[in-house]
């Protein structure tokens, strides 16, 4: 039996912030192709920081991270190569407010992948249709609701045809009634076999979609388990405590 390829491999990652705060204390994680990994944990546990090291938005001082066969190093060429293959969705959407929705999607493929604009636009419209907002293509981000903006942000990342998608609390800034529409898009992505690492507090999403759940606390990985075992029978006292807190 051949196991699927390893897409992300983090070994002993240590990070100190410039103010001396020890944010990551020797974190290990492997993510396989087509796998959905949900990272949970209390705020300040280092889960977002850890996620952001995967595409070098955060640096780290010790340990090693390999993404899609490319080892993260100070080499800027490597970093750009990794960022082309890894999509990122932010809590605050971070759409470009001076560009229309369509231009938000086409900017990077045209500039970075040097693809012809008409082809990219066709693909962008398909993606917008897939996330259910094709009719908003010519509006500006400021005219959309939070849920719509986050779906545009997902489509923008997908337009680069990434092999891995990272989500940094994608629903935390949304009004409750808009959370579902974003989660459904992410669920669809998972069904299509996208490799995903998701930092979130959405227990239902973790239960239904994740292959494995990671609990982080104070810069270390406390527990890694499939969702059914993690939520019904956590092995560690810290996990039980966390699950009680989010109730």
């Amino acid at each position, binding site marked *: 039996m051949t196991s699927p390829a390893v897409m992300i491999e983090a070994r002993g990652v240590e990070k100190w912030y410039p103010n001396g705060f020890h944010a990551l204390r020797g974190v290990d994680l492997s993510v396989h192709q087509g796998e959905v990994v949900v990272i949970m944990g209390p705020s300040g546990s280092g889960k977002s920081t850890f996620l952001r090291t995967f595409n070098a938005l955060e640096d780290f001082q010790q340990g090693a991270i390999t993404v899609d066969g490319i080892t993260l190093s100070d080499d800027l060429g490597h970093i750009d190569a990794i960022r082309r293959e890894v999509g990122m969705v932010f809590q605050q959407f*971070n759409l470009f407010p001076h560009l*229309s929705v369509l231009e938000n999607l086409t900017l990077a493929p045209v*500039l970075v992948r040097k693809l012809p604009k008409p082809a990219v636009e066709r693909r962008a419209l398909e993606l917008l249709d897939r996330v259910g907002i094709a009719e908003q293509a010519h*509006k*500006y981000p*400021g005219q959309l609701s939070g849920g719509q903006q986050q779906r545009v942000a997902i489509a923008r*990342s997908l337009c680069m045809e990434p092999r891995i998608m990272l989500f940094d609390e994608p629903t935390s800034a949304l009004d409750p009634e808009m959370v579902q529409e974003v989660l459904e898009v992410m669920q669809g992505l998972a069904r299509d076999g996208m490799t995903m690492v998701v930092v979130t507090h959405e227990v239902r999403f973790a239960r239904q979609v994740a292959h494995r759940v990671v609990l982080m606390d104070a810069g270390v990985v406390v527990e890694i388990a499939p969702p059914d075992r993690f939520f019904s029978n956590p092995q560690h006292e810290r996990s039980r405590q966390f699950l009680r807190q989010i109730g």
Partner: protein
Amino acid sequence: MAAPPPATLRPGPVQWLRRELFGSRLDGLISIALISFLLAAALGLARWALFQAQWAVISANSTLFAVGRYPLEQQWRLWLLSALLALATGLSWGLLRALPRSGPPPTLWPRNDRWAVAILVVLALWLPLALQLTLAIQLRWWASTALLLLARWAAGRWGQTLSPLARRLIPLIWPLLYLVGMVLISGGLGLVQVAPSDWGGLLLTLLMASFAILLCFPLGVLLALGRRSELPVLRWGSVLYIEFIRGAPLITLLFLGQNILGFLLPGGLAPDRVWRAAWVLTFFAAAYVAEAVRSGLAAVPSGQLEAARSLGLSMPFALIHVVLPQALRVALPTTVGQFISLLQDTTLLSLIGLLDLLGTARTVMANPAFLGRNAEVYLVLAVLFWCCCAALGLGSRALETRLNPNLAASR
């Protein structure tokens, strides 16, 4: 069906006056006092301008005020440049109207434009007469205005039929025109050289200001980026430069520039006195533009750069396509404010002996034939500067509206 707005939202003029000026007894008193004071001042000014002032000092020296000692037989070059400028202005004006950034194009002549046309026509008819210019020059004046209006009309009428490529190429006529203008003014390429020391008046003022404005902007953006750079050498260099320039008065730097550039550069390479001053103005304004741009950069959330970088955009691409467009829009009003004070600062050139508008005015007033005519000269100077600054301000506001995605989309 929307309900009609209540009547109080759209008051008639009398109601408006009553509400805004005479809302209470105190308001009424203040309004009456202010209005009578303004009326008295306006009356006094009008009486002086119509009966006491002797405008001959202006009409007799109009050429001097316009171009200084630019040789008479070469002035056709400046008229040609004026005609080209009129053409380009009319073209751009019409295209801006015909191709709004979003939404349907408005009518061919919106109300503001009709006002502008009326003012232009009145100026074209009245000014040459008031200045008692010769018929030949009057004709050139009328021709330039007619050219402007014709271009405005044609571009407004047929702007939408232009191909996308042409639309993208047309803004390039401005830099091109600047180069052509430089050749026309200074000579070369078969034209007789006219030395910078012969340029003067409004010509010199506008030339210095536009040169400095055009060059200080990119320089200022680079300095602002340098100030936020992660490379210490770049950062400290930029900080040092900006703080040094902002700590020194412009007039000091102008004198310094006249003296020091001669020592710094080997003989022959040192630019002429006029160009030395132009470069000092540019370097001076760049420091202030840099501060305006820095505040704009600070207004762009860090998530924007992160999003751009995580899409794989290189740092230059992320800056050019994501960060700078947003930062410059925020910095635009302050930057244009800098441009306006730069235009006014060109009057300091008269103190280092250049014959800009103010310098020319001082030589005219020193002429015994026009002794005591200072008020007339200064008033005209003030009006001229006001017109130039108002044009800059109007342009910046139009640009601001055009660049604001929320405004543009909700129109």
